[in-house]
């Protein structure tokens, strides 16, 4: 695979497949290989003394998963949509699978290497450390998030409007 200088170090690819979704009106993406399922939102069982962005746990196919609100992780105030979606992501932290609540799933996107840019120091207020790359879709930026770093860091993030 050709190495490119235009994406974050460690990302070597000709074309990346990502799942694009919306949070607070902004376009984000995660590595499609990490996405196991997309579920309708279900109210979780709240666990005691959970991190502020963790809503609780849900059960899926006999397994218990943490449910993480990406809105809360990105410091977005206010309630989200009535029917958000849940992305089941594998291998993004200590737990085998994590449920990530997003506002709306948009579509699968193929990002050729030459269309993927390394992030500037901050994008929408999010530090580059949490971003794998930035692309353009429909004339708007898409921020490809590093799910592992997002969920294993305790650093607060505030998404800028």
């Amino acid at each position, binding site marked *: 695979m050709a190495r490119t200088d235009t994406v974050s170090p460690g990302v070597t690819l000709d074309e990346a497949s990502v799942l694009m979704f919306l949070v607070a009106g902004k376009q984000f993406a995660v590595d499609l290989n990490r996405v196991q399922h997309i579920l309708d939102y279900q109210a979780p*069982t*709240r*666990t*005691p*003394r*959970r*991190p502020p962005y*963790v809503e*609780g*746990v*849900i*059960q899926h196919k*006999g*397994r*218990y*998963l*943490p449910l*993480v609100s990406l809105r809360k992780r990105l410091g977005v105030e206010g309630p989200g949509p009535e029917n958000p979606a849940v992305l089941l992501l594998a291998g993004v*932290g*200590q*737990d085998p699978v*994590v449920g990530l609540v997003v506002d709306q799933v948009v579509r699968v996107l193929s990002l050729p290497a030459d269309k993927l840019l390394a992030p500037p120091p901050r994008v929408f207020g999010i530090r580059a450390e949490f971003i794998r790359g930035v692309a353009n879709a429909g004339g708007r930026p898409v921020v490809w998030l590093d799910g592992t770093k997002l*969920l294993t860091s305790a650093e607060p993030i505030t998404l800028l409007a």
Partner: protein
Amino acid sequence: MTFPEAVGIVAVHPQRGGPATAKGECLERVAPAKQKARPRPEAPTAQEKFLLFRVGEEIYGLGLRGLREVLLPDGVTLFSSPPHQVCVALEHRGRKIPVIRMSALFEASPAGIPPTARVLLTQGQARPLGLLVDEILEMAEVDPARVGPLPALATLLSPSCFRGLFTRQDHIILLVNEDGLGGLDEVVQFYATGS
């Protein structure tokens, strides 16, 4: 020719693929007729009993094995136990026992002690330990194989405080671990200072 592996009836079929005799007959190994197996009685699965209780709006469970008594919260005295006021004292049969205010530990509804509250007197690390809960609910029997691990992201408390999760009537129930609770700093300090 001999076929040491042959264990069943050997049928002779002319001109069909398979081992052949010197006469050219084709032998086909046929599986022995299976005897009808007698149905085995199912081994009973080991069930463990748990007492379900409420703290705030969620339901939790405590293993019955270590449970000694269920007490009214009369005689629970608060004393300064930074930082959470988690551990309080209960006078019981002439001795002071540490009682964990589960609503404080779990950051559940903090408003006082409801009239339905009870103290579950159990053993934590081989020492008496009380758990002050909002309400006793019912007993449940659970196959330990059905208890799943608590995800790491689910809580900032020590994982040793919990045994795992199980589902009952569409409710996910978190099982506490009395030995883990008995190892909390506040409880250890309680016994160390002789309070």
